[in-house]
């Protein structure tokens, strides 16, 4: 077996060159936008559900006040998530360009999340 072979090539199990996992890299890079879109989908669906049931004359999936509270809480949680990702991106070793991309996206996602969540305070529910 050559010194250059990173793992034993006669291993019966998945004889592939083991590459470092890129999961962490992707989480740091696009974690912010993922948080934004999850937050966006959550507040949209909750609002749609609340307003649809209100329209139909039933008591509502959640009340108007509860809807606003749910959106504000979701926004705070999402922004905390963006902040955590930002810190992780800054502390991570490795490619600085990808880290910078992650930082920019994390900050942008936090801003976009805030703008989305503020709608609950500025515009009335349903």
């Amino acid at each position, binding site marked *: 077996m050559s010194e250059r072979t990173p793992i034993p090539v006669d291993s019966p*199990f998945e004889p592939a060159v083991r590459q*470092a996992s890129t999961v962490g890299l992707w989480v740091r890079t696009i974690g912010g936008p993922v948080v934004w879109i999850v937050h966006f989908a959550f507040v949209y669906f909750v609002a749609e559900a609340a*307003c649809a049931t209100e329209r139909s004359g039933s008591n509502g999936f959640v009340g108007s006040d509860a809807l606003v509270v749910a959106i504000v809480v979701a926004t705070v949680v999402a922004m905390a998530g963006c902040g955590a990702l930002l810190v992780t991106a800054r502390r991570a070793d490795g490619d600085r360009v990808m880290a910078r991309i992650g930082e920019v996206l994390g900050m942008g996602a936090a801003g976009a999340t805030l703008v989305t969540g503020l709608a609950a305070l500025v515009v009335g529910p349903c």
Partner: protein
Amino acid sequence: MSFDVAAPSDRHGPIGEPVVDEVTGLLTDPTTPVSAPAATTEQLDRLWDDKPGLWGRLTAVQNDAVGRRMMLTGFFFLLLGGSVDSVVMRLQLARPDSEIVGPQLYNELFTNHGSVTMFLVILPIFEGFAILTLPMLLGSREMPFPRLGAFAYWTFLMGGLLYYSSTLFSAVPDVGWFAYTPLSGPQFSPDLNVDFWVLGLGVAEIGAIAGAVEIIIAVLKLRAPGMTLARLPLYAWAMLITAFMILFAFTPLIVGSLLLELERGFGMHFFTPGAGGSSLLWQHLFWIFGHPEVYIQFLPATGIVSMVLPVMVRRRIAGYSWMVAAMIGIGFLSFGLWAHHMFTVGLPAIVLAFFAAASMVIAIPAGVQFFSWIATIWDGQVRWTTPMLFVFGFMITFVIGGITGVMVAAVPFDQQAHDSYFVVGHLHYVLIGGVAFPIFAGVYYWYPKFTGRMMSERLGRWNFWLLFVGVHVTFFPMHIVGLLGMPRRIYTYPEDAGWGLWNLISSLGLLLILPGIGLFVLNVWWSRKHGQRAGANPWGADSLEWALPSPPPQQGWTRLPIVHSRHPLWDQDELHRGDDRHEQLAHALGRWPLKWRAVLVVGTGNGEPEEVFRVANTSIWPFVTALGTVGIFASELLKLRLGALLGAAIVIGSVVMWNRPSPPLMTEEEELAFERDHGVPVRASGSLVVARWGMALAILFVSIAFGSFLLSYFYLRLENPVWPPAGVARPGLGIAAVVVVLFAAAAGAVGAGRRGILAGDRARLVRGLAIGSACAVAAVALLAVDLASADFGPGDHAYGSIFHTLGAFTIVLASVAVVMSVSTLVYAVRGHYSARRFSPVDNVARFWAATGVIAAISITVLYGAPYLTS
């Protein structure tokens, strides 16, 4: 005949005459590196070439052929649908009370114009462009799944032709490119017009997704050694993000189209309010696709601009990381904008606010891109070549379209401007400025690489100025006439409306656009034979493809480059120098193997070599599969249900043949010998890494489709206060539990079989596949019987429609998994797999795991939701 000012006649001769390696004034440093010549170039060129003749054309899979065909087909549909329709519409609207065409034909014209340009023109042009250029740009020899690329092309072509065949039946779609329900439903559109729209474009949508899978894996895995993510050319980033967007956007549309066709052809009720459906559900499903579609077209254009502009100003792009972040940001944000097309349908105020906010926020990353380009220009010195002129035209025009986009993002303004000509003006500024001009820039820029000839600069300048002036004369007045109150999609207007002058100006603008397009076609045709001969790098560019000869050999890179920089041709003196391991590997792959097509796979993040595999060769099966696919859709169009079943049988049979194992052309010992020398596994029987990525994306596609069905289910649930409808019993839970257990057992058995072959135990593999298939067949049969014996039918109400549709989706998904596991079982019995060559087994096991999870969720929703949400 010559169209160039300073083009000596000796530069126009046939091959063999002197070649110019630079365009005057462009190249400050003519010593950019080129790819190393190798003794094996001709052998590899023959190995990678497609076969000649008609059979060769039908079986061609090489990225050059597929890419060119997709682009040419896109341009063909542009001339057919984009140009002719618009000319007739502008002639009609030039004067008030015009009767050149009637309202019905006008409806058909604007429907065709929108549908063709959005589905059949820009998308195949960009995907074809990517398939053509990415391997050279990334330092690879091919795309990962050449047969999938060929399938993408054939489905684009056949889908487009199926759509256009509506003219033969006098059934041209006439409900707009968005086909809103209930207008597109069976009550108001009982003829075949809408079926042509749904089914013809549905085939093309499948092609778009197939192409996207190719592009994602090519960018992430098929690159030169050393090309890390941070060294990716911006065009590759743009196409990577675009391809993911295609996957996420087109899948909901396919699901929506399926639901619409089920409503039209099978009497179901998803969009009929009287039966518990919702017409807004269609709008949601359509615009979840429709708005990202704009950015699906815009992002590749920004990628092209980001390649052309720095070369033309001889400066690196300013703010590379900001530019990548902006592209990713646009990709995500574009999925939070869809309801801004629905501001006037009565959505709750808070929902309007969410979408208005996202619609305005997306201007920020778009602005970042523009400031990056402006900073790059500021720092450099502009050479006003034709590609740069089109970049300039893009920047001016798109900024105007972007600003009007921010205007319509504001709810109060949009509610005034909605469905007016203001929106028509806005979208044409975005799509022509933001998409068409960069396409022209890209063609002028890369044409020399693929033909070995420069396009005429003189014709190019005329081409640009006619188009630039013509576009603004045509589309700017539309903003004014829209604000004056002219609604869109009207076939004529009265004289006293006061819109006549602006419409006349718009129509006159077309007199500039048409010769502009004509000159472009002339230039492409003329320059192919008479253009100035181009060397390897006539623009003095920085990216890898310009190190190859113009035109390049079939395999592109005989000897793979080794990348140390984001601008290898500007920063590296030599393209084949690197660390010893990379050098030896690149050198070895230039000489070996010469009897099968070898492609290098690298690590996603670090660009380190990960695998050498045999990429698929020519095959007729992608063509046959596309024929079967279009056969299903065409049969449904004609309500020939047996024909649809035949089409499905052809698809299943041809996919099995497409993927059947072929002789690996190399023994496991020979593979191991190379592996010992170079430390990189060789897989002459097909890749493990790329196949895993392909399966992951297939699972992602299925998951998005499933998510779209779930969205539809719960949307209908919200629209119906009583669920299930009064008089309908809740489904029984006993059979559901048995079905879930059987699916879990199937997934577990196949997984156990996979572990068996990894341990070298083929009998365990056979046992696992057999037990898994049997469990799955039992589960499918039980579920089918339960659906068939329900006391309500799919056509009774919305609940019945979505219940049976989601159930049928689960059955179809599980049936696909059964076909995969049975065909793998057959090959396993024949002794095809080993602990080293087990990629198909790996794929089946992963697909079964996903199927098990999706089936469990699906059955839980179907059987549990009526209890949980009442």
